[in-house]
């Protein structure tokens, strides 16, 4: 059976029957042939020339293998030559802020900019004397420094507890998206687990796409943008029938649905002609689109039907639905499915404000800093949705740890915990035996700096009060 298919495939690729037969004495599949070298093919009994042509005809694989490598090499210098545009968006300080900052600097008091901005926001409107300004700064400085965290505090454990404890109070259900759209978004504990797991694709990817310009104001323009984003498959706009007697597919476009999505019949023909199974076979006939099979095979016809049925006519890969909603007087699109990179290219989209809940996509498109912010935003959102209050500093720490080395790492055995420096700590977490054996093989040294290791050997941990030592050097002759 397999051999027969291979034979057909070879013939399809304009290889003569004899050569194909010869090839099939040794090989069973196309890939096996393409993997073979010219010499090996000659051994089968082909001439060198024939062997080379065979390989070039089926040998997409071999050529492909080298092509991307070359591309990568080319791409590197390109990147370098194209200077990145540096984007600065410095916030201009208000008069009050500058004044406060200067006074604080003069007084030698450190205050985070946030506090200064907050104070300035309140006193801007009031007319206050310099004396009061100074007093404000001094008091704020005192309050701030008394609220600082103690040194050697085990911030990590605090963050882990603060994030883990409310987990028991969350629920397991997914909720409908707040607003008009009936888009399911995973919420609650499963979503939180998903975030710390750094899953490649979230279980319910979703985007929030605010629009800009007239698209934000005009519903019909917004609808047009949405239709650019949402994937339209052939079945959404047309009905497909198989005409077995004539071995062809009849596609009847639904004009109303097409108009709604801003499509013409010609577009469909163009798109369908790019679909692999029916390449070059699609043409218009009256109001129908006809695809005539080039092979008298029902199998082929069925295959064509399957690939045409779900062919993408319009839209962005991965976005299965796009729903409009009006928030604060301007339109925005909420989607099921996420593809940040492509959405950013669409006209009418407010590219500065597009949000996706797929953290790894953010990391890929916008970089690790953005991914870090995305983790914080998503985690805060999930906890907030459940009505739980967790200080943002805890989530920041988790996000910073996850993104620390430039890649989004999961919290768990494949990520942060599996990369710990201590053998004992890793062994105590998961996959105990493997870690111990490997440690023995490479002669690993555990320097007992973390918490778990020290608990294992039974000595004080290196955090909090265990981090400080009192060293006393008795002076000679003091006690004698």
């Amino acid at each position, binding site marked *: 059976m397999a051999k027969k298919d291979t034979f057909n495939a070879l013939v399809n690729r304009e290889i003569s029957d004899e050569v194909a037969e010869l090839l099939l004495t040794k090989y069973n599949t196309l890939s096996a042939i393409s993997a073979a070298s010219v010499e090996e093919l000659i051994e089968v009994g082909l001439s060198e020339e024939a062997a080379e042509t065979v390989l070039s005809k089926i040998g997409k694989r071999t050529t492909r293998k080298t092509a991307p490598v070359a591309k990568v090499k080319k791409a590197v210098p390109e990147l370098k030559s194209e200077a990145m545009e540096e984007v600065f968006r410095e916030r201009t300080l208000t008069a009050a802020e500058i004044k406060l900052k200067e006074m604080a600097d003069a007084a030698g008091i450190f205050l*985070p900019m946030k506090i200064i901005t*907050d*104070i300035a926001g309140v006193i801007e*409107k009031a007319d206050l004397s310099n004396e*009061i300004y100074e007093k*404000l700064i001094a008091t704020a400085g005192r*309050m*701030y420094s008394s*609220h*600082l*965290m103690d*040194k050697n*505090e*085990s*911030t*990590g*454990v605090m*963050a882990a507890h*603060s994030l*883990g*404890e409310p*987990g*028991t109070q969350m*629920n*397991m*259900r997914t909720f409908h998206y707040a607003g008009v*759209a*009936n888009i399911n978004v995973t919420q609650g*504990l499963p979503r939180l687990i998903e975030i*710390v797991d750094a899953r490649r694709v979230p279980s319910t990817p979703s985007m929030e796409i605010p629009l800009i310009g007239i698209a934000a104001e005009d519903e019909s323009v917004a609808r047009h943008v949405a239709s650019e984003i949402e994937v339209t498959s052939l079945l959404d706009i047309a009905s497909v029938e198989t005409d077995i007697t004539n071995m062809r597919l009849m596609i009847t476009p639904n004009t109303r649905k097409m108009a709604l999505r801003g499509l013409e019949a010609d577009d469909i023909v163009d798109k369908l002609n790019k679909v692999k199974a029916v390449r070059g076979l699609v043409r218009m006939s009256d109001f129908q689109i006809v695809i005539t099979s080039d092979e008298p095979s029902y199998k082929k016809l069925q295959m064509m039907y399957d690939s045409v049925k779900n062919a993408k006519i319009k839209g962005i890969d991965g976005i299965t639905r796009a729903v409009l909603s009006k928030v604060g007087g301007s339109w925005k699109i909420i989607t099921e499915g996420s593809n940040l990179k492509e959405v950013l290219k669409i006209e009418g989209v407010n590219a500065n404000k597009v949000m996706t809940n797929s953290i790894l996509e953010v990391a890929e498109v916008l970089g690790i800093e953005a991914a870090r912010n995305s983790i914080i935003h998503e985690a805060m959102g999930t906890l907030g949705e*459940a*009505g*739980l*209050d967790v*200080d943002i*500093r*805890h989530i*920041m*720490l*988790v996000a*910073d740890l996850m993104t620390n080395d430039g890649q989004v790492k999961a*919290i768990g*055995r494949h990520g942060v*915990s599996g*990369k*710990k*420096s201590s053998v*004992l700590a890793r062994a105590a977490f998961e996959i*105990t*035996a*493997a870690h111990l*054996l490997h440690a*023995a093989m*490479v*002669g*690993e040294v555990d320097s*007992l700096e973390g*918490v778990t290791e020290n*608990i*294992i050997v039974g000595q004080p941990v290196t955090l909090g009060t265990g981090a400080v030592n009192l060293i006393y050097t008795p002076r000679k002759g003091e006690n004698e």
Partner: protein
Amino acid sequence: MMRGITKRIGSIKFSCVSPDEIRRMSATKIITADTYDDEGYPIEMGLMDPHMGVIEPGLRCKTCGCKVDECPGHFGHIDLAMPVIHVGFIKDIKLMLESTCRNCGRIMLTAEQIEARRDDMSEMKDLGGGTIDLKNFSKETAKDASNKGVCPYCSTEQIKIKLDKPTTFREVDDNHKLTPKEVRERLERISDEDLRTLGMDPATCRPEWMVLTALAVPPVTVRPSITLDSGDRSEDDLTHKLVDVLRINQRLRENRDAGAPQLIVEDLWELLQYHVTTYFDNQTSGIPPARHRSGRPLKTLAQRLKGKEGRFRSNLSGKRVNFSARTVISPDPLLSINEVGVPFIAARELTVPVHVNEHNIDKLRKMVARGPEPPMDNGYLPGVNYVIRSDGRRIRVTERNAEEVSENIDIDYTIERQLMDGDVVLFNRQPSLHRMSMMAHRVKVMEGRTFRFNLCDCPPYNADFDGDEMNLHVLQSDEARAEARILMQVQENILSPRYGGPIIGAIHDHITGAYFLTHKNPRFDRFEAMDILSKLKDIDVPLPMIDEEGKEYWTGKQLFSIVLPDNFRTTFKANICQNCDFCKKEDCEFDAYVKVRNGQLLCGTIDTKGIGNSKGKILDRIARDYGAERAARFINEVTRLALGALMNRGFSTGIGDEDIPEEAALQIANYNQECINEVSELVESYQSGTLDQMPGRSHRETLEVRVMKVLGQARDEAGRVAGKHLGLMNPAVVMAKAGARGSMLNLSQMAGCVGQQAVRGERLSRGYWNRTLPHFNKGDLGAHARGFCSNSYKSGLSPTEFFFHAMGGREGLVDTAVRTSRSGYMQRRLVSALEDLKLTSDGTVRNTVGTVIQFKYGEDGVDPSRTVRGKAIDLDDLFAEVLGDDADTLLHIEDMDTGEDYGSREKDEMEYTEEEDGEEYDDIDTDFEGGSE
């Protein structure tokens, strides 16, 4: 005991043991598979050889001469007749075989490649690459070197090697099986230099050691045999496995020496390989696990270590302790929040070591003389259970020898005295999800058999009194006591580091009490006022007011102000606030605008927003500005005051509180019927296809959404009508509005209508074919057929409604069970990932290696438990302090200080369906060792 220099283990190095070293450190060679002779004595050179340590009391170890518990045990060894591969290293062996030449043993990379690899490796080390990074890198090196056709050094053609799981190597071309002997020979040929390139350290582990020629036999103390009641001995699983190894080893040797056919020798060799493999890991994939006679799989080395019950997690990361107690808990509102009531029996058993010095010797002598069971005539007095002499000898104090022992007490002795009032102990309830699950309390020894503590401590422990048990640990060193007192006492933990608000505060009745004390400022005559205040100690009673008739009276707000700090100042809106569009502030008709100036409550009602746990703003401010001690005092006083007020007024709730007048019931029933009709109309239009489809939704979904909406309205309307008729003075309403317990949703379900039951957020739909219950027609989509309960809990559910309600309730239970295990595993992973991070003295957060995780903790270095609703400083405080009361007018601050909530929002705001306050199942295994190990 606690004296002398404490040494710290600096580091631990792991390494493999060479066969030579196994033989050298071996106390005895094991040659026979028999363990004990007929008299029951261990056989020399058997698996229970007394050279390997002793497990029976009275015997002495033949190697070190020590008795049981003193002798640490000694390793023995088995010389294997033929080499055998160690399963744990199988993958590494394969990589090494593939990456090195089969002839010359050199790594199949050119000199330059090796050079480059080594350079990269040392650079990685310099840059702080962890073991795991290096491991992956070496793996890549090996991969690079493998799959070469020809060795670059000796030009030998290479043959691909295939691994037949678990331990057999084959050469691909002729299917020749590589015996462990051949493998070992090949590994021997790899040079030390090449090993370093492959990331191994030849000093700690030569690859040929991974093919065993000698097997270390663990000491008997590691695998003690148990003598059953019947006198039979039951051996440890490891011993069983070693017996197997020895037997086959013996047979293999005999057969080989006798020159048996190759086939037989190979079979035996493979059998030996199997036994050694299962001896290391009995869960190796690809081979059946070795079983005990009873059919239970044996627990061999790897199984001893891994998993939740393994050595690491159960004995090394968590340890059993002495000086601890566990019993049922019960409440005692008269205890301070930092006290714990300990029953006499427990106190007599738990001891604190006291060092005898010249200042306390007389006191301690008297104490010892009292013996372990002092008479209870004058109440509880601590006795002494043990005296430890300066040479370390322990003397048990009994009634009889008490006098004598007490006389002999000298300086430098240590006595273990029983627990007494004021001792610092740790108190804990599992699951210990956050640090407030273990706090230090002061002991108060009392009668009874339960631990008792103040009700305000329930939220941090997540405790209730339906049979919960808690643990108590007595601290044994001064250092520990000091740390516990400074860091762990209850008052130090009033502010939760999770959200920077109080987690300990007034709950339930305290809030109702405070509400009645302050709401609409009631008047109390002298008798009532003194009755309420009699619960408090050391207070200054303010001067009474005089009413129109010349009688003395005190107002509730006056009484409440007694417990406030003198110069206290705050403004906020109470929980009963109706969120009017325009706030009338001081003139609020609901008395919901709370204003405190100079420690006097000027207006407003004190409820959960004032003193409640997780929301209490007064509490929060006192804890932050006046310190932990003051906050603890405030909580103690305010709860007593509130309870006093509540007892003075009297408060009860019951089923009668949910009575609603007939016309209200009728109104609700009518509205329900209207909604049900509306649903029927919707269903009809759905069936006839005239229902307008919502964008992006199917017809059916549209119907469901609209029906849910209509029925939701029905319940809300019922609640509204019921709420209106219950009135604001209804005890149940008071509790809900003040935030003490229950919500308006609960009430409306009791009095009005239970509402739609849901599973997975949808109307009920499963059960029978096309219907939920056989009481309905097939395909019925109406309200009642899909789980709408139009009755109230009070009026009673109809049989079908009852069934639907059970369905919804079951989902809640399942949800809880799943949730606990899921979140438990998530927290374990979080803790494991974050446990090593600490704030260093330069303000950065770093891990153990010194990698900076954050340059400034939380971007401003502020401790979340010291923040004000997450903000580094409270602007209102700032302006109030600098500008005084003029702040508002000067800065035109209109709506500041309304403040958001801490902690969780009201449940009914969040959830459509009710969440039953189900019991959490702590006992369920909260561990997910996801995937296979």
